[in-house]
């Protein structure tokens, strides 16, 4: 099918390589906020780019299903959707049952208990990285912190932590040629992210689950083992926890460093008043980074959105990365402002039953990371442009070469 539209093709990963296409997204918000985007290899989809419309979709899981067709843009056969779906790709009631298994471990108070461990992880990661003088910030710091925290929480032994990071890279970078393994091979469509690396992640999760089966702990994996999930449910649950909690926080920390480097006056303001501004700066870094560009829903029945008629079965994509820059919601949305308040960003979702489970944990990690980094009397300088992931889904940074200045 030929694509004839003078709007950006949001299905084309190449349109996200140089930068997030903010100008093209703003044009969609202004000229065609519920836009039909034809696809070269698919049946096309609605692209929803205004804050209020995105919120309406996410808060109406009756009309906009996560389960029919899943939450990624790619069209899959129903049996593939079924085989690889975690709770993120489910509707009530099963979604709610699965989420309830771990929900109480991610409340503000439950997460607050981990603050000491998060501070320790951050301190150790920075102590090890900064003396290198010149290094890749993604590899040494941004990927290391969330993975170490995740490993701490799941009880993954220290010597196995690098392995899980590498599996995660292969799993999630599947649209990027650097990480893709047999990317055009159809035989992996039943796996999360259509990636064979999912099998390695399953195996990793099974090892931990097996240990908890023999000796239960007061932790998430023990909760899941006790819940009597099927093997497949267990596998995809682990992949969800490992990916949703890791890659997103990693990219947010990387984008946070870039933003603070490019806005030195904001960095100095934050450094001088961290106790007061640490929380608002964290929210602004989250808004600025938006590590997940979009999510997909599928219309369960004929409905209406922003004046457009949506037909049952239509794919509806909600561009959080656009909602976070919507001038109707944010004053001067293209300004990075560490004291911005209020800041109702939709980086964790705009509210709804799929609102990010790990939101409080992510905020804690980001706040502590920059607090520590800005209090060490050194500066990190970018020595090359950030290398971006080729993906219309993740706003990812693969490499970020930095140098320490004293």
């Amino acid at each position, binding site marked *: 099918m030929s694509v004839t539209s003078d709007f950006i093709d949001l299905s084309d990963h190449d349109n996200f390589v140089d930068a997030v296409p903010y100008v093209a997204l703003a044009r969609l918000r202004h000229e065609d906020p519920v836009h039909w985007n034809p696809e070269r290899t698919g049946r096309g989809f609605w692209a929803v780019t205004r804050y209020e419309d995105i919120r309406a979709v996410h808060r109406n899981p009756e009309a906009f299903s996560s389960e029919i067709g899943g939450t990624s843009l790619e069209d899959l056969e129903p049996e593939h959707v079924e085989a690889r779906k975690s709770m993120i790709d489910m509707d009530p009631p099963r979604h*709610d049952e699965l989420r*309830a298994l771990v929900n109480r471990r991610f409340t*503000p*108070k439950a997460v607050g208990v981990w603050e000491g461990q998060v501070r320790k992880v951050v301190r150790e990661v920075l102590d090890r990285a900064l003396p290198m003088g010149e290094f890749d910030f993604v590899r040494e710091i941004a990927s290391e912190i969330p993975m170490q925290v995740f490993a701490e929480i799941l009880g993954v032994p220290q010597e196995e932590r690098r392995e899980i990071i590498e599996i995660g890279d292969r799993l999630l970078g599947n649209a990027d040629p650097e990480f893709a393994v047999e990317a055009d091979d159809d035989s992996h469509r039943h796996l999360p992210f259509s990636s064979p690396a999912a099998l390695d992640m399953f195996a990793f999760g099974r090892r931990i689950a097996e240990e908890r089966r023999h000796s239960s702990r007061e932790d998430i994996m023990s909760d899941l083992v006790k819940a009597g999930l099927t093997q497949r449910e267990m596998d995809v649950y682990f992949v969800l926890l490992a990916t949703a909690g890791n890659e997103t926080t990693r990219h947010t920390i990387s984008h946070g460093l870039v933003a603070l480097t490019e806005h030195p006056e904001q960095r100095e303001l934050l450094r001088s008043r961290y106790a007061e501004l640490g929380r608002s700066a964290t929210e602004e870094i989250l808004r600025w980074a938006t590590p997940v560009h979009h999510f997909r829903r599928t219309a369960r029945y004929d409905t209406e959105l922003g004046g457009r008629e949506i037909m049952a079965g239509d794919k509806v994509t909600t561009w959080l990365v656009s909602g976070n820059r919507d001038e109707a919601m944010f004053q001067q949305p293209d300004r990075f402002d560490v004291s911005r308040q209020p800041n109702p960003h939709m980086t964790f979702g705009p*509210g709804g039953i799929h609102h990010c489970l790990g939101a409080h944990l992510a905020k804690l990690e980001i706040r502590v990371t920059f607090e520590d980094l800005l209090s060490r009397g050194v500066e990190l300088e970018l020595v090359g442009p950030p290398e971006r992931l080729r993906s219309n889904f993740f706003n990812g940074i693969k490499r970020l070469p930095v140098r320490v200045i004293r």
Partner: protein
Amino acid sequence: MKVHVDMNLCQSHGECVAIAPDVFELGDDDMLVWQEEVPDDRRADMEAAANACPMMAIRLED
């Protein structure tokens, strides 16, 4: 009116507590506790709380 909260979904974000601290409260272990019967003149607040809940866990019934 009656206020229902689905505790499978509630994650103690506390948005409802900020809007109506006399109806919603975070108790021990951050568990939400709330009044199930609320006078009708509080409808606006209850609707605001339901709308603010990130988890859409609050449901109102007449």
